[in-house]
C-alpha cells in the first residue's frame, strides 16, 4: 500500500503541493491526473524521496525514508537517464546489487525479450535511443520486484508494442498484489488500467474516484468536469 499523508511542498514562496492526502491499496492501480503545473511532479518526486517535504509518505506502512521501505519501492521517472558506461544488462545487475534483490538470469532474459531489448543487452547507456532508455528504466524497476511502483508518464517515448507490453505488465503486477501509481496526461492510455483516480489542481487533490463508484462515467469527462477545463 502507498499512503501519502498531508504532503506539502513549498518552493520559496510557491506552494506546489498543499496537504495532499491519498492512498493506493495493495493490488490496485492509482492514477494521478492533473493539468500542467498542478503539482503532480512535486508529489511524485516527494514520494520517490527526491524532495524535502512536510507530511508523511508510507510504503507498505513503513516511512518511505527507511531503507526497508525503499527496498520494496520502484520508481520510473518521466525522463530516463542511463549510466553512459553501463550496458543494459549491467544496469539490471547494478539495481540487483543496490536493492539486494534475487533475480535470476532467466528472469532478466525474459524481461529483455518482453521489451524487445534482448538484442540490445550489451549496448552501452550512451548508445540507446530515448525510447530504449525508457524501456530499460521500466525493466530496472521491474527487476526490483517491487511491492509499490511509481510510474511518471511511463508511456512517453514508447512504441505501440512496448506500450501494449507495459499495460499487460501493469495488470500482471496488480494481480500479484503490487500497488501501482501512474502519473500521466494520456487519459486514453490508462482507461483500461485504473482502479482509483486522483485529480490534482493547483497543488490540491480536487477529486478522488474509485472505478466501482463511477463505473459508467468516462475518465476523460470526469477530468474535464472537475478541473473546469474545456474538452
Amino acid at each position: 500500500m502507498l499512503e501519502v499523508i498531508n504532503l506539502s511542498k513549498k518552493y520559496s514562496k510557491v506552494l506546489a503541493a498543499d496537504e495532499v492526502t491519498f492512498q493506493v491499496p495493495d493490488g490496485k492501480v492509482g492514477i494521478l491526473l492533473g493539468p500542467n503545473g498542478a503539482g503532480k511532479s512535486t508529489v511524485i518526486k516527494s514520494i520517490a524521496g527526491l524532495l524535502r517535504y512536510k507530511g508523511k509518505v508510507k510504503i507498505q506502512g513503513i516511512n518511505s525514508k527507511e531503507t526497508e521501505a525503499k527496498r520494496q519501492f520502484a520508481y520510473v521517472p518521466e525522463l530516463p537517464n542511463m549510466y553512459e558506461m553501463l550496458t543494459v544488462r549491467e544496469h539490471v545487475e547494478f539495481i540487483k546489487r543496490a536493492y539486494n534483490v534475487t533475480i535470476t538470469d532467466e528472469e532478466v532474459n525474459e524481461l529483455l525479450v518482453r521489451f524487445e531489448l534482448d538484442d540490445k543487452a550489451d549496448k552501452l547507456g550512451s548508445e540507446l535511443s530515448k525510447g530504449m532508455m525508457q524501456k530499460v528504466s521500466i525493466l530496472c524497476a521491474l527487476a526490483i520486484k517491487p511491492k509499490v511502483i511509481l510510474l511518471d508518464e511511463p508511456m512517453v517515448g514508447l512504441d505501440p508494442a512496448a506500450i501494449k507490453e507495459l499495460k499487460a505488465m501493469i495488470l500482471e503486477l496488480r494481480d500479484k498484489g503490487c500497488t501501482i501509481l501512474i502519473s500521466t496526461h494520456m487519459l486514453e492510455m490508462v482507461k483500461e488500467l485504473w482502479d482509483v483516480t486522483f485529480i490534482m489542481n493547483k497543488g490540491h487533490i480536487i477529486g478522488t474516484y474509485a472505478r466501482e463508484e463511477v463505473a459508467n462515467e468516462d475518465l476523460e469527462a470526469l477530468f474535464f468536469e472537475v478541473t473546469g477545463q474545456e474538452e
Partner: protein
Amino acid sequence: MGAFFYLYKRSIVNRMKRAIKKPVTIIWLLFILFYIVMVPYGLMEIARDMKIDSPNGMVIAMSFLAFMLIPANIIAYAKRKGLAFMPCDVHFAFPSPISPKLMLVYAHMKGLPVNLIIGVIGMIISGLIFGITPVQMVLFLLFATFMQNILEAGIMVIMYGSEKITEKVRKVAVYVAYGLIGFVLILGLYTIGTNGLSLESVQLFISSDVLKMVPFIGWYIAVLHLIILEPTVMTIIGSAAYLVAFVAIMVIAVRMKCTGQYYEEAMSFADDYEELRNKQKQGSAEIRIGKKKANLKQADVEYKGSGAKALFYRQLLEYKKQKFFVFDGQTLIAVAVAVLFVVAGIWGVDFEEATPFIIPGIIAYIVFIFANLNGKWHKELKYAYTYLIPDSSFKKLFYATLMQLLLAAMNGVIMIVPSGIALGYKPIIMILCIICYVALMANKLYSLVVTEFICGTALGLVARQFIHMLLMGVGIGAGALGAVLGFFMGGEVLAYVFMLLFTVLISLILMIISSLNFEKMESL
C-alpha cells in the same frame, strides 16, 4: 557499497574497451607518456634553478598546493557544491535503499582512481626531484592521497548530509574558511614584509610555528614537516591536532543522521552539470552550476525583410534580452589583450622586429586557442527550422553567422585600437588588423560547419575539435604565408594586404563549401 564498486568497475572496464577501439586514444597515450617523461625533467630544472631541489623544497611546493586546494574544497562543500552527481545517479541511485551517506562518499570517491594515479606519479617525481627516501615517499602518498581524501570526504558528508546544520551555520563555515585564508595571507605578507621577498622568507613562512597551528591548512603542513623533515614540538602538536580533527570528523560523519534531504539540491546540481556538459560539447563558454538562471530582460526587435534574415533578427533579439547585451566572454578576452598591450606600451616593452606583426600574431593565437567558443550561432545548426526556412543555403549561412561577424568587428575594435595606439601602429594598419580579425573569426565559423560535415555522426568530440583546429590552422597559415610574401615584396602595408587577401580567400572557400552543405540537416 557492492553496487557502487560494481558501477565503478564496469564503467572503467567499458570505458577502456571503448577507448581501445578509438585511434585518438593512442594520441592521448603518447601525450601522457610525453608529459610523464618530460615533466619531471622540466620540474627538476625549475627546482634546481629555484634552489628548492631538497626535502625542504618539497614541503614548500606541497604547502602551496595545500593553500590552493584545501580551503577551496572546504568552501565548496560548505556551499554544497563540488560534488558531481549525474542525472543517472538521481534516476537509479537516489530512490534506492543505498544509504544517502554512502552516496556522498561515492560521489567524492569518483575522483579517487585518478587522484591515486596522480599521487603515485607525483610520489615518484617527488622522490626524483626532492630526494626524499622511499619510506617518506610511501608515507607521503598514504597521507596526501588517502588520509586527506578521507578527511575531506568526512567534511563533505557533514556539510552536505547533515540535517541539523542550518544554512546559517554553513555560511559561517564559508566565512571561517575565508578567514583562515586571510589569516594565512596576512602571515605570509608579514613574513615577507619583515624579511624581504626571498626564498628564505618563503621557507621561514612555511616553517613558522604559528602557521602550523592554523586549522586544517596549518595542521596539514605540520604533518608534511613531520613526514619529510625532522619532528619538532610544533610539528608534533600540529600533526596531533590533524589526527584529532580526523578522528572527530570521522566519528561525527559516521554517527550523524542523514535521510537524504540533500537530494533536492543534488538533483538540481546534477541537472545543471548535465546542461553544462552538453553546452560545452556544443561550444558554449557558460559556467553556471548551482546558481539561478540569469533573468532575461524584456526586449523586442523589428524584423526587417524575410527568409533567412529572420535568423539574424532572432539572434539580435536574444542578445537584447541578455543582461550584458552583446558583451560576453570574447569581449572580456578582447579587453584583457588590449590592457596587456597598453601596459606593455606604457612600460616601453620593445618587441623589436616583431612589433608590426605582434598584434595579428596574438589575435591569430587567441582565435586558435579559443576555437571552442562559438557563441549563439552554433545552435542554429541543431534547429530543424534553420533548414526549413524557404531561402537559399548561402543566405541562411550568411545570416546565421552575420551577428557573429559584427560582434567580431566590435571585439576587434576593442582589442586592436588601444593596442595599436599603444604600440604606435598607423591607422591603416589598425583597420587592416581589424578586418583580418573578422576574417579569422569567419574562418573559424565556416571551418566549424565544414568540420561538422566531414565528421557527421561518425567521429567523436575530440576528432571534431582536432579537424576544426586543423582547418583553422590552414587559414592562419595562409595568412602568415601572405604576410611573409607581402613583406618581402613591398614592406609592412603590403604584408598586411597579402595577409588579409589570403585569409579572406580561405574564409571564402570555407564559406562556399559550408553553404553547399548547409542544405540538409543530415549532412551536418
